[in-house]
């Protein structure tokens, strides 16, 4: 997809004026946090499991080279093939080469964010191979030529009328006047349409939630069963997975699985958690004859050993965006990148460069909710702060921001002046705003007050109040 991250501000303004999107956001926004909270409350060990999950991933990353090599050896032992891809281009070439070798005409796909990142679909189409998205949400997005707006609920931004319109437009062989009484009717139409595609496909491409070194297995987690049909029915199964999906053992995997669904959809466990190991065995009655894993780096290895290494713990549950006030206001497309929300704001500058993606880490109120719900305890706000520093160091931030920070820094280095200036400021604003208790517009703060009111200070600074409380406490 074409990254529109540099236009985040305009995208966000458009999103807030988009009636359909706001309707979808209003519907979805409260659901994810409520479901997660219920699932977490039902498992008393959840907090301890978070710490264990973090340790498992930290251990894996500290020995990532060893585990990748062990994984590759075990995939080969089970009769599969591993293709190492440093760049997106390498990965696309590996996938295309397999598809061309087996003479593939159609390729079914399970939901995979790495496939979005690699832009596999466009590449296959260019070479005359038809990719078919089979996840319900991804399917309608493919019909509409839209990117996903959420990493686990890709089409949550659409409303029922959008689904109906898209299906009528795409499925022209069905009666034009058919009625969709319920959501179920939409689902049923997609089910029968895609069932034919599953059966006809030559190659199935899935992502992976985990790669297991111990067994050489790839793991997918779905609710629809589309990923399983994708990887079971065609002659060839290709797994696309980035290197940080690595986990040492089955026991490590099950510990992470206890966190994943609860953090993502608020389910105790997803409907289908499937472990794939090599191609079909001699006496198997079904399954693919070939099993390939494309191990994708595309910028990950450069994060190892840096202040961004913790991001490689991410298991793509989407809890951070589900709880983010910014995401909940502007939706996923505003971020203009493959990965939206807080995790995307950290990952995107890494993937497309801080010059293009550097604006995203500013799209945060630093409320810290993302970190507090992250099952892998990734310090997302801290890493966004690192990006802001890099943006500043590289003189990529706007002049007004730089000058404002310079003025603030001058005062911050002179505590007496700082206290004096804030005292004057707080007093003046306190006097001016005493009557209404808030400001609806302020000079130099138009960008802030355009979207919300500024509460008027009560006339006293924090320093003064703190000092008074301390004195009172001692007395």
């Amino acid at each position, binding site marked *: 997809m074409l990254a529109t991250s540099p236009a985040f501000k305009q995208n966000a303004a458009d999103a807030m004026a988009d009636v359909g999107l706001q309707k979808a956001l209003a*519907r*979805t926004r409260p659901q994810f946090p409520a479901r997660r909270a219920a699932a977490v409350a039902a498992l008393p060990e959840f907090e301890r*499991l978070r710490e264990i999950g973090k340790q498992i991933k930290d251990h894996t990353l500290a020995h990532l080279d060893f585990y990748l090599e062990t994984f590759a050896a075990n995939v080969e032992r089970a009769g599969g093939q591993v293709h190492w*891809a440093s760049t997106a281009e390498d990965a696309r070439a590996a996938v295309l080469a397999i598809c061309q070798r087996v003479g593939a005409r159609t390729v079914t796909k399970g939901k995979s964010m790495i496939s979005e990142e690699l832009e596999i679909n466009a590449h296959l189409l260019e070479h005359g191979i038809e990719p078919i998205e089979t996840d319900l949400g991804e399917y309608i997005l493919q019909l509409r030529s839209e990117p996903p707006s959420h990493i686990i609920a*890709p089409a*949550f931004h659409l409303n029922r009328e959008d689904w109906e319109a898209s299906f009528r437009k795409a499925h022209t062989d069905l009666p034009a006047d058919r009625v969709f009484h319920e959501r179920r009717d939409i*689902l049923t139409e997609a089910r029968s349409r895609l069932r034919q595609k599953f059966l006809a496909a030559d190659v199935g491409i899935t992502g992976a939630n985990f790669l297991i070194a111990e067994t050489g297995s790839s793991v997918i987690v779905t609710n629809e069963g589309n990923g399983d049909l994708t990887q079971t029915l065609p002659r060839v199964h290709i797994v696309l997975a980035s290197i940080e999906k690595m986990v040492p*053992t*089955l026991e490590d995997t099950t510990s992470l699985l206890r966190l994943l669904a609860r953090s993502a959809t608020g389910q105790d466990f997803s409907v289908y958690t499937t472990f794939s190991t090599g191609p079909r065995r001699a006496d198997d009655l079904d399954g693919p004859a070939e099993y390939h894993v494309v191990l994708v780096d595309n910028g990950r*290895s450069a994060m190892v050993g840096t202040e961004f290494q913790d991001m490689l713990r991410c298991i793509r549950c989407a809890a951070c965006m589900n709880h983010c006030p910014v995401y909940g206001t502007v939706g996923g497309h505003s971020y203009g990148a493959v990965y939206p929300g807080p995790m995307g704001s950290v990952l995107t500058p890494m993937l497309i460069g801080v010059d293009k993606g550097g604006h995203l880490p500013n799209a945060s109120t630093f409320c810290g909710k993302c970190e507090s719900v992250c099952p892998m305890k990734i310090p997302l706000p801290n890493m966004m702060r690192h990006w802001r520093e890099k943006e500043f160091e590289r003189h990529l931030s706007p002049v007004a921001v730089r000058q404002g920070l310079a003025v603030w820094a001058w005062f911050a280095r002179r505590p007496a002046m700082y206290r004096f200036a804030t005292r004057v400021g707080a007093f003046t604003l306190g006097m001016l705003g005493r009557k209404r208790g808030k400001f609806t517009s302020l000079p130099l703060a138009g960008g802030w007050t355009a979207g919300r009111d500024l509460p008027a200070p009560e006339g006293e600074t924090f320093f003064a109040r703190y000092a008074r409380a301390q004195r009172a406490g001692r007395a």
Partner: protein
Amino acid sequence: MSRQAILGAIQRGLRRGPLPEDQAMALRARLAAHPRHLIPARSRVPRPEQVALFLRNLEKEFATSARVPAPEDVPAALAEYLAAQNLPSEFAMAPHPALQSLPWDSRPLLRRREGRAEASDLVTVQHGFAGIAETGTLMLPGLAQTPTTLNLLADSAIVVLHASRIVGAYEDAFDLLRAEVGPMLPRNVMLVTGPSRSADIESTLELGAHGPRRLHVLLIDDDASALG
């Protein structure tokens, strides 16, 4: 090319060369021992409660179940379920000895075909390798006797499970798999928790996305200690 580039970049990031042999040995020992982590207390309960927890979680995940006292009661229970759901009496069945040995002659109206599932199958009968009480999850490895397509293609998936095969946690089920099938996993191991579903349309849950619309477990009470 890419392999060396990726491994080299990781090692540079970790500020070391290839992992020293003593450390590699320790990691290989960890892989061989595959230690367990915290197992939630919810499934560490006496057998009857474990079975009850399994059935409760099945129901929570929109699956259904029926308990039968012995294997020979399975054909009747199956016929009863199919009739109650208004389903055809024809089904594809896993070529597993535990299913093949059931007294099918007692129900001559049931028509079964052994093997993998085909697209036209409306009902499938699978042999359950294990049940996991923790979340009401079925472990269904894809072996020659238990083809994976039986878990996926039909509208109604029925799984015959022995109560003695209900364990507490995922780890318990994987231990059974390691012990009985070997250290190399079967090509496919599915953990199935309820029937297929999607919430992609307006964030509203609908059952029966691409996999089975119904999941029914016939539980054979072969475990005296599990009868509560």
